[in-house]
């Protein structure tokens, strides 16, 4: 079976600064892949190229076998890729439920149906008690949940998560991990996540891709990657000893 997401020789530079150089990896159907690496390694740049925020300088991105390289962000979403933003972008003036409903409208016929669909997702993310509050009043962890809820509402086949665990308390982090594991296992949702919280990565990921200076330096199972000397040197350091 061909992979759900296939990234081939992807490169991108910003005014001469090479952000990503020849990155290749794939995420299988039903996969749960983590993209890790130091700050500035190019993780979010890869995300933004996959999500259609900007075009790659060279290389190819295929989703379900189809090239999606030239598509706009909304077309990528319509194709079945949902994303969250590292720096959260809530619709501050809208209520929590309306935020999620805007995402749900992509696949639902009308407002009432979208609202029903959104209500279920809001509950699932533990935002039920806050559904009618304006998003502006949410705390950062709740805003992260809202990001996830909104992306899920578009019924994606592939979910891109950009540091959704950052700022969460360990227990909240574990809840989130549990949620994604369930979405992956039960609903067959494929997930690609950028994450610094190794606790979450180790608990969640089936495969880890390590990025350093825009290049992929290691790939493999969590157990393999944390023992890789190159990874230890550039990124994990002593943390892996824990």
């Amino acid at each position, binding site marked *: 079976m061909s992979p759900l997401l296939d990234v081939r020789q992807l490169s991108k530079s910003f005014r001469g600064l090479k952000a990503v150089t020849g990155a290749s990896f794939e995420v299988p159907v039903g996969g749960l892949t983590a993209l890790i690496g130091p700050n500035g390694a190019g993780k979010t740049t890869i995300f933004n190229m996959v*999500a259609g*925020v900007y075009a790659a300088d060279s290389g190819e991105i295929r989703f379900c076998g189809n090239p999606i390289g030239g598509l*706009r*962000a*909304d077309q990528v*979403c*319509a194709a079945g890729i*949902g*994303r969250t*933003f590292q720096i959260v*972008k*809530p*619709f*501050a*003036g*809208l209520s929590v439920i*309306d935020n999620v*409903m*805007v*995402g749900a*409208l*992509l696949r639902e016929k*009308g*407002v009432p149906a979208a609202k029903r669909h959104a209500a279920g997702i809001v509950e699932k993310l533990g935002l039920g008690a806050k559904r009618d509050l304006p998003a502006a009043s949410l705390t950062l962890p709740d805003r992260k949940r809202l990001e996830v809820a*909104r*992306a899920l*509402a*578009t019924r994606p086949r592939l979910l891109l998560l950009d540091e959704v665990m950052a700022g969460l308390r360990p227990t909240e982090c574990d809840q989130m991990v549990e949620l994604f594991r369930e979405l992956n296992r039960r609903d067959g949702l494929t997930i690609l996540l950028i994450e610094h919280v190794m606790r979450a990565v180790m608990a969640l990921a089936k495969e880890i891709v390590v990025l350093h200076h825009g290049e992929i330096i290691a790939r493999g199972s969590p157990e393999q990657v944390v023992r890789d000397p190159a990874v230890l040197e550039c990124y994990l350091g002593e943390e892996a000893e824990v």
Partner: protein
Amino acid sequence: MNRRAAILLTVLTAGLVALPGFADAYVLSVATLILYLAYTGQAWNVMMGFAGQLSLGHSLYVGVGAYVAAGLFFHLGIGPWAGLWLSIAACIAFGAAIGFLAFRFGISGVYFALLTIAFAEFTRIGFDHLGWTGGPGGLFIKVAQRDQIDLANFRGPPEMYYYAILALTAGAFALCAWLLGSRAGYYWQAIRENEEAAQALGINTFRWKMLAVVLSSAMTAVSGVFFAFYYNNLFPEQIFNISRSIEIILGPIIGGVGTLFGPILGAAVLTILADTITEVLAALGWEFPGVKQVFYGVVLLAVIMFLPNGIWPTLARKLGISK
């Protein structure tokens, strides 16, 4: 919309329908002006309040709408009911051109606002040199026979104009209420709040922003046609003037941008207060040219300082009405 809002709306509508029965000519003219500003403000609100696209050149659509219908009537005897559609078409063409240029090339925020001013300004200059509409000398329609109603040519007594603009304001209110609860309304608000996030949720932001601009310009075209046939004279220097654009947007800003009642409330508050001040000063024998503009500035300042979301959101909370 809850029960209290429905009651308020019913009382307001009943009062406005009954108004010509007991109001004198002066009050009726003030009420007509308020409704004209409320309707036009509502049209502007679709673009800025709902979709977050700031237009500071809405006098463009009033002017083009007015000139097209008045010119056709004056030269060719084409009545406003037919001319209206051409006015709308012309304004949509202008709106679509501005929208396309801005959204295709990523012009947003202040720069978008500047673009709308630029279009209004060069259209004003264009009409100054357009002989067909009288150039800077103006275009005049024969003043209406006040005692007979000629619906076909939209000529008649002040009551007729009052009811026409009342119907337009009510229609715009209903349309906007429906839009806000529809897919378009939610998409516009999402774009207004965060365009990048909206696009990431599969919203074709270009298309929906275009829709907002086109709809807003089409609605404003109608107020232009009303303006032409109510006031009977058009001068490019006046109708396209940026002060007219400011006047249009003051109502919604003071009443509450993005709300349904805001444009109506704002237009009423501004017009009544400004007229009262002018009257009081006149009664005292003082005359200051431009006192109205100074007053607008003071009110705007006060609202921005104390009620940055406008009067309506605060008032609605006090009345127990959801905005």
